[in-house]
């Protein structure tokens, strides 16, 4: 049903630079109606920039954009994009937290106005939520700021697919599943398939290659601002995608490393219980990597913060550093440079008496930039000049560089590309071998395989306690859902 000869969107030689950074170096792409188009690439490859051009939020430095055969480059803006049916779900959420779900729908659908608009908005967004995420548990009168990040993501996605007078012809999803657990992600991908089968076009950006391979019709691989491979999905395998992105091919996570013995030999450094009745408690021993699993938003973050704060009722033997997952609200200092963002976690090391030695702090940041591979000319650039994934790497550098015995990680791999992930996994294993303890909340099953011990969370409580040897995907999923649900 794909008909490449009659594209709905045609990009020709699009270029975009931010100062010295060349984010896009002449990209040409065609998007056909009725296809799901996958876009993958390392962090900072230019994927989000390309989508921002497509949705009118950035102007290309050169090149042209055609929609439905019409050249819209001159004066292209979000308004024009919306008029042509181009919708976008951004990498950073863009709901108004002070408005209800229904009111947020009104923001992107100007057609909902006049008498009875509220009823229509409720119906519109409610139906779409039911369609995409059945059993979502969101009321259209909920204020979005009160929702968990996963539910906000659902609202945002449903809003993009909803149709009023302006049709939705092209929906861009920039890492839509990064905050969703696997069940919700599965529902979304199923909806994407239904949607494209109905003739719509979806651009799907994701670092989860399985998702891309399983959902998309065609896949483009980006590297350093250009498209380096473009083919039907069937023409790629996981390994060939990784190879095209320029990352080392993924190796299977180190299997059980015979570290189960840690539980018996090493001292216990963390003992924590969620504030819920009928919960197991979590323990971590020195040098262990402990996984926190379950659907998203089941109390994992709260427990991590509890450990971080040395809250009453938790026993924590050592200094704690945290890697934030929600980097905008929990991690980044937006006015600071990369160097300042990295070194803030370990400032005490750079004191000469009372005064900070900035040179030492910068050298430290530079070292970590190299070590963790942050893509930037130098560490004095503002942190916001980094792509989402690279910002996340800076947060990793902050925590790993800090003089902490215990590192808690709040779903830290959101938006990190495969190559980097492998490097970070290796780094975590090294650090653990040196005696650091990790508490690692993740929504990705693959990552749990890096853990020595896994606790599954449900509704704020710990419901399963699985040593590495006993952990299987089935057992985790089984524990994640209530028996009666």
């Amino acid at each position, binding site marked *: 049903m794909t008909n490449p000869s009659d594209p709905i969107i045609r990009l020709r030689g699009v270029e975009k630079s931010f100062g010295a950074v060349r984010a896009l170096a002449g990209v040409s792409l065609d998007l056909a109606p009725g296809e799901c188009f996958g876009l993958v690439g390392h962090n900072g490859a230019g994927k989000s920039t390309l989508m921002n051009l497509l949705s009118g939020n950035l102007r290309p430095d050169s090149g042209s954009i055609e929609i439905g055969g019409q050249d819209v480059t001159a004066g292209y803006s979000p308004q024009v994009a919306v008029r042509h049916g181009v919708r976008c779900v951004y990498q950073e959420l863009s709901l108004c937290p002070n408005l209800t779900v229904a009111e947020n729908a009104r923001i992107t659908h100007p057609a909902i106005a006049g008498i009875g608009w509220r009823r229509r908005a409720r119906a519109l967004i409610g139906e779409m939520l039911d369609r995409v995420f059945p059993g979502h548990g969101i009321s259209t009168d909920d204020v979005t700021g009160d929702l968990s990040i996963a539910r906000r993501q659902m609202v945002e996605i449903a809003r993009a697919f909803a149709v009023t007078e302006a049709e939705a012809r092209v929906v861009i999803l920039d890492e839509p599943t990064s905050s969703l657990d696997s069940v919700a992600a599965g529902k979304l991908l199923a909806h994407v398939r239904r949607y494209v089968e109905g003739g719509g076009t979806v651009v799907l950006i994701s670092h989860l290659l399985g998702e891309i391979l399983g959902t998309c019709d065609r896949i483009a691989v980006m590297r350093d601002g250009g498209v380096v491979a473009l083919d039907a999905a069937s023409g790629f395998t996981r390994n060939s995608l990784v190879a095209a992105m320029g990352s080392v091919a993924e190796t299977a996570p180190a299997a059980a490393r015979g570290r189960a013995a840690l539980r018996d030999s090493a001292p216990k450094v963390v003992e924590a219980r969620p504030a819920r009745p009928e919960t197991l408690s979590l323990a971590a021993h020195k040098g262990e990597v402990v996984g926190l699993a379950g659907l998203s938003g089941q109390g994992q973050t709260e427990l991590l*913060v509890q450990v*971080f704060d040395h809250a009453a009722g938790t026993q924590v033997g050592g200094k704690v*550093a*945290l890697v*934030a997952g929600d980097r905008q*609200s*929990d*991690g*980044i*200092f*937006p*006015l*600071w440079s990369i160097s300042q963002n990295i070194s*803030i*976690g370990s*400032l*005490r090391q750079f*004191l000469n008496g*009372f*005064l*900070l030695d*900035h040179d030492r702090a910068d050298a430290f940041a530079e070292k970590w930039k190299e070590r963790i591979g942050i893509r930037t000319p130098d560490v004095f650039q503002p942190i916001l000049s980094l792509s989402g994934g690279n910002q996340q790497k800076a947060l990793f550098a*902050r925590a790993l560089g*800090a003089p902490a015995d215990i590192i808690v990680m709040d779903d830290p791999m959101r938006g990190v590309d495969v190559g980097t992930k492998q490097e970070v996994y290796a780094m975590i294993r090294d650090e653990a071998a040196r005696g650091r303890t990790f508490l690692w909340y993740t929504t990705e099953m693959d990552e749990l395989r890096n853990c020595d011990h896994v606790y599954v969370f449900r509704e704020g409580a710990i419901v399963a306690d699985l040593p590495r040897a006993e952990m299987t995907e089935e057992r985790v999923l089984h524990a994640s859902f209530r028996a009666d649900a």
Partner: protein
Amino acid sequence: MSAARRLLGQPWLWAWLGALAVWLATAAYTDGKGSGEVLSAALTFGAFFVIVALGQMFVITLGPGNVDLSIPACMTLAGTVSMKTMGGAAGMIPLGLALALAIGAAVGVTNFALIRLLRIPPIIATLSASFIFQSAAIWWNRGLRVKPPQPLADFTTAKIAGIPFIAILVIVLALVAHVVLTRTLYGRGVIAIGQNMRAAHLAGIRVERIRAATYILCAALAGLCGFLLAGFSGGAALNMGEEYLLSSIAVVVIGGTSVAGGFANVPGLWGAALFLFLLVTMLNTFGAGAGLRMVLTGLIIIGVIVAASGGTRKT
């Protein structure tokens, strides 16, 4: 070329340019007569503004909504209590100074307790508390103006080679504040909190300790200013701090510190303090009536802010 651009990017530049411009305009109007003396006066009075603005700068840097509106009341309370306690006796000066600082610290603790324990927004908390401090000052000595000890009066009005001694003192104070802001854990913490309080907490910064210290520092500086100003102007009056309410904010922001928090600079404070004093002086010299003078003051402040913004988005 790039040096010029770096200079243009400095947040304090516009305040200094503004100060220079109004000073030159005044000098041109009077054919240069007395412009040295004007500068000397500007240094003296600017010094008082800078003392309180240093504290206000740290508070404002803590982030949106953080501001200390109790500065005038704190100055009055510290000024009246210390003057009355010293009773004009030279030997009591150290005690008076300690008392002024202690009152400032107590005011800061009160402010922070309201903000932290009762979770009242700082703008309202400090304003409400200021009424109580003002009442305390009234109750303490019923508005009597006790004279400062002579050595204190001499100290605050002394000049070295035409430069007011107090200005030198405050320049040193500003240097210390600059180092504190840029080179200490505390300064780093303040700036981090101003950008994102939750992220600062999760990066291991002692958020509440730093916030408390900042409100206490600000009030202590206001206490110091009240003490020195009372010494300078021959006694503490109940309304002595009134002017410092809006001026302290204006000096901080014209000086290039971000009202959205997380970004501060000290050199701009001096520039802005001189600018505000010289601006009023210029308009007085031109003989502008009160109404016109206020209109022009407002428009020129806005003009400087517009010039300094350079259209960049920050926040």
